[in-house]
């Protein structure tokens, strides 16, 4: 089966010699059968990493091993993996059947087996009735499924996904996400999944690789990523609404005050200045008299089951997620209750996590 190991992998695109490498010194291991997401903002090198694993891009230095064997001089068409592209990359001139069968034909799978595998994959993804159609006649969701079916029919040791859901609308995205999860549970193949949507990464993955500017920020389980973000970058990137990250000065032993507001937290640290992180959904709001208030309500965004209330703390904005349709109104003065919130703190200069 397939374990993927990256050892000091670096990539510099030819003609881009001056800037920093597109991918810089990555080392981690993706265990056999695991579902691992590469998460990060646009341009951070996710696709580049995936393409190197697939053999679509050369590695500038370092090694990629699959099951302990170096593959970085193996052409893409010689590696045993399947790739699902963001824009699906369906062959526009072939019908759905041919699209799914193409990879099998190229690998000289016998005809009857091709037929059986294509139908099997199509049934699994509920696209049997469009097997004779050309891709351009399909809806976005159907195309997506064809791309998945093409990968599944190959029965590869490794699945690679490059933002496979980002072209779908919200509803379809959620739906397909669940299907993907079920699919992985059934097939059990090692999967590497690129996304810039933290929700997707969280819901799907066994492990998440958070990247930023070509560098690894954190590699861990969704739980670790969410509750123990290794850097302020991870902290702000993961979680919705975004974690409140506020500069705080040391006000006394173990006490830090957020500039411009009465808000303060207890932290067992010694730095004169830190960035304090508080998740909106772990905080609460209390009505307050103007004198004792931390801030005033600026915007309320009802989401149905909850509402995001944005509080103006004077020098910064602070978001609190409250359940249901909130009873506070714009302009109200409020106190932010952080008592039940888990405290995060990061070094101002390096962004590294400071507490536990």
């Amino acid at each position, binding site marked *: *089966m397939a374990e993927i190991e990256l050892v000091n992998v670096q990539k510099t695109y030819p003609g881009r010699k001056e800037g920093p490498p597109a991918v810089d010194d990555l080392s981690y291991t993706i265990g056999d059968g695991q579902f691992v997401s590469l998460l990060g903002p646009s341009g951070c090198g996710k696709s580049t990493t995936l393409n190197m694993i697939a053999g679509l891009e050369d590695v500038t230095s*370092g090694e990629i091993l*699959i099951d302990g064997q*170096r*593959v970085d001089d193996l052409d893409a068409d010689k590696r045993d993996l399947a790739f699902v592209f963001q824009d699906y990359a369906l062959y526009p001139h072939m019908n759905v059947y041919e699209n799914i069968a193409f990879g099998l034909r190229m690998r000289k799978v016998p005809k009857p087996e091709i037929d059986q595998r294509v139908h099997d994959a199509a049934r699994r993804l509920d696209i049997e009735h469009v097997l004779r159609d050309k891709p351009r006649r399909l809806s976005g969701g159907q195309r997506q499924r064809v791309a998945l079916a093409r990968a599944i029919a190959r029965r590869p*040791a490794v699945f690679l996904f490059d933002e496979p859901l980002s072209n779908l609308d919200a509803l379809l995205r959620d739906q397909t996400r669940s299907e993907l999860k079920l699919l992985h549970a059934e097939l059990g193949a090692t999967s590497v999944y690129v996304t810039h949507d933290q929700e997707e990464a969280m819901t799907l993955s066994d492990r998440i690789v958070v990247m930023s500017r070509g560098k690894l920020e954190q590699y861990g389980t969704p739980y670790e990523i969410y509750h123990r973000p290794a850097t302020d970058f991870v902290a702000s990137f993961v979680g919705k609404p975004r974690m409140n990250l506020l500069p705080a000065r040391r006000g006394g032993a173990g006490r830090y005050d957020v500039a411009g507001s009465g808000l303060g937290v207890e932290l067992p640290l010694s730095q004169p200045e830190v960035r304090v992180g508080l998740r909106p959904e772990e905080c609460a709001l209390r009505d307050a008299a103007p004198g004792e208030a931390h801030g005033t309500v600026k915007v309320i965004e009802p989401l149905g089951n909850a509402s995001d209330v944005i509080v103006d703390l004077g020098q910064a904005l602070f978001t609190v997620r409250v359940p249901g349709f909130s009873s506070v109104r714009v302009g109200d003065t409020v106190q932010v209750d952080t008592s039940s919130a888990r405290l995060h703190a990061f070094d101002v200069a390096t962004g590294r996590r400071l507490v536990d």
Partner: protein
Amino acid sequence: MSATTAPRVDTSAGSPRPPGPRPRRLGTVGHRVLVALLLVYLLAPFVWMLVYSLYPSSALQQARPDLDPSLLTGASYARLLSDTSFLVPMANSAVVGISTTIICMVLGSACAYAFARYRFRGRSTLLLGMLTVQAIPVIVLAVPLFILLRAFGLYDRLPGLIVTYTAFILPLVVWMLVGFFDEIPPSLERAARIDGCNRLQIMVKIAFPLAAPGLAATAILAFITSWSDFFLAKVLTSTSASTLPVKTAAFQGLFAMDYTSAATAGVITAVPVLVLALVAQKWIIRGLVEGAVKG
């Protein structure tokens, strides 16, 4: 998981390969050679004509052509470019080319815009008809066109040629421009309407500027076509409106074949078009051809 096709790295499996990208040079070298050959093929004929125009023919018509730079001479150019019987056709060609281009662009862009903007029944048939004008061999029309022009007193006059070329080139211009106008996102026109433009303003202020590369490419094509035409110019003019290609072809007469002059005239005829094509290459490559494909 089927492990049958698992990646295999035969014998070299364990031994570390020196770092660095894999050698792909062989393919690259082969590619370079092919590209170089292509370049030679593209340029050599023209370069040879250029050489011909710059050397005395005696130096070239030998077993081993003598390309001693000291033999280089612009005499042939000096002679042709001071000869009114050559300069007049040159000026004629310029006038005809430019006028035809302007008329074609004015009429053609308006027509093409209407075609692209208003989808009426029979549109594609009409467009295809436009393309079919390309199928008419000019031989068919030479005599009747001559009669027509003579009846209007336009024989051997520049307006006669201009009108004729316009008729031939206009359909092509329309056909190409429709492709370009079709490319303009409809939402831009909607935005312009919301912004308070009437139909004419949308055309002039939005559609035309947006199709500018296409318009440029088309204009150049129109110019090249009218500048290069030989047969119609030959039939529809005698002296006063004679054009450069006719004059150039005439350098090989029964008693007057003159390779050096022919080559020189050839270069002079080709150069304006070449310069235009090269200056506007960005538009041409992008516009001309893409428009054609998509149309």
